[in-house]
């Protein structure tokens, strides 16, 4: 599906851009790559810092302790993950970082969690149920402190920049809960249809 989406984005982006609006399609095409480099450059130090630190946590057994402690809660959402599996530690770290509004710090844990989930899925190139649930949890974005939004509101002279925090929390929890239900529903429909 991403395959098609990527193609569609490029084709529509170029054709529509040439016909209307974008008077410099060539420029968008040629310079967007440098944005990609910037993004990866900002990601590398974070990846190295967190994977390095987490390696220590894993070698000292701290990750295992956390994974065991959180096993019960995480396995309600991810029934296919075995109890006390190290992936639980990475999944919960990712969720906690996202909740704090630290999306950049959440990414390294998320990627590591994905590779752990792949191990659990016998290294197959088909996405597993747990992977999809994990992605849904990430894209639904459970936030407690929407840091960037608050700072943009301050910047634009809001009289109470944090008044949206409570509503955002309620919304994000409600929509994440519904998204997880949706994920389960799709899992059962898909299993009936294809497997």
């Amino acid at each position, binding site marked *: 599906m991403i395959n098609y989406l990527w193609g569609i984005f490029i084709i529509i982006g170029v054709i*529509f851009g040439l016909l209307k609006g974008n008077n410099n399609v060539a420029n968008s095409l040629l310079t967007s790559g440098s944005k*990609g480099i910037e993004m990866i450059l900002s990601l590398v130090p974070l990846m190295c810092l967190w994977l390095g630190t987490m390696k220590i946590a894993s070698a000292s057994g701290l990750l295992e302790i956390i994974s065991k402690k959180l096993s019960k809660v995480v396995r309600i959402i991810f029934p296919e993950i075995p109890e006390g599996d190290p992936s639980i530690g990475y999944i919960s770290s990712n969720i906690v970082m996202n909740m704090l509004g630290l999306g950049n710090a959440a990414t390294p844990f998320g990627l590591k969690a994905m590779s752990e989930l792949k191990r659990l899925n016998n290294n197959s190139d088909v996405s597993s149920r747990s992977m999809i649930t994990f992605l849904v949890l990430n894209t639904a974005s459970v936030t407690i402190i929407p840091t960037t939004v608050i700072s943009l509101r301050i910047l*634009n002279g809001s009289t109470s920049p944090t008044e949206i925090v409570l509503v955002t929390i309620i919304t994000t929890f409600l929509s994440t809960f519904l998204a997880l239900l949706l994920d389960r529903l799709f899992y059962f429909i898909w299993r009936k249809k294809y497997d």
Partner: protein
Amino acid sequence: MINYIIPLIVVTIIIYGIYKKVDIFDTFIDGVKEGMKLSINLFPTIFAMIIAITLITDSNIINYICNLLKPLFSKISFPTEVLPLALLRPISGSSSLVILNDILAKYGPDSFIGRLSSVIQGSTDTTIYIISMYFASIGIKKTRYSLTVGLLADLLSVIISFIMVNIFFR
């Protein structure tokens, strides 16, 4: 608070490592190597996605689609000014932030439109980017129902944001 949390997490892990007699420096270096490898593996995906995302956001098609959808959304009194944000949010984090900033500057952060945009931005994420990056990082080819659920969840988020902001601020 965040100024304390992250350093404290790092220090706690290192102290616990020393207490458990882990070779902390070498272990850290091993993790850094892994992080390096993962980042390099990720680069092609990020590069490819950024090109597609830039082309689609620069092409103005989002505004065009918004104009098509306007009559539909004004019927349910959903402010159509927020539509570009709702449509761009799953595609690009940076351009949706630019749009949010424009909306806040134009309509004011304490207006209904400003509040709704803030809640939408805060309660959703860049679904398409996350899904493609996370799957590509571990070489998943068959993504099954993930994108459908992810995008439906975004739609749900926007609907719930609209309902909630109506309840709390109207």
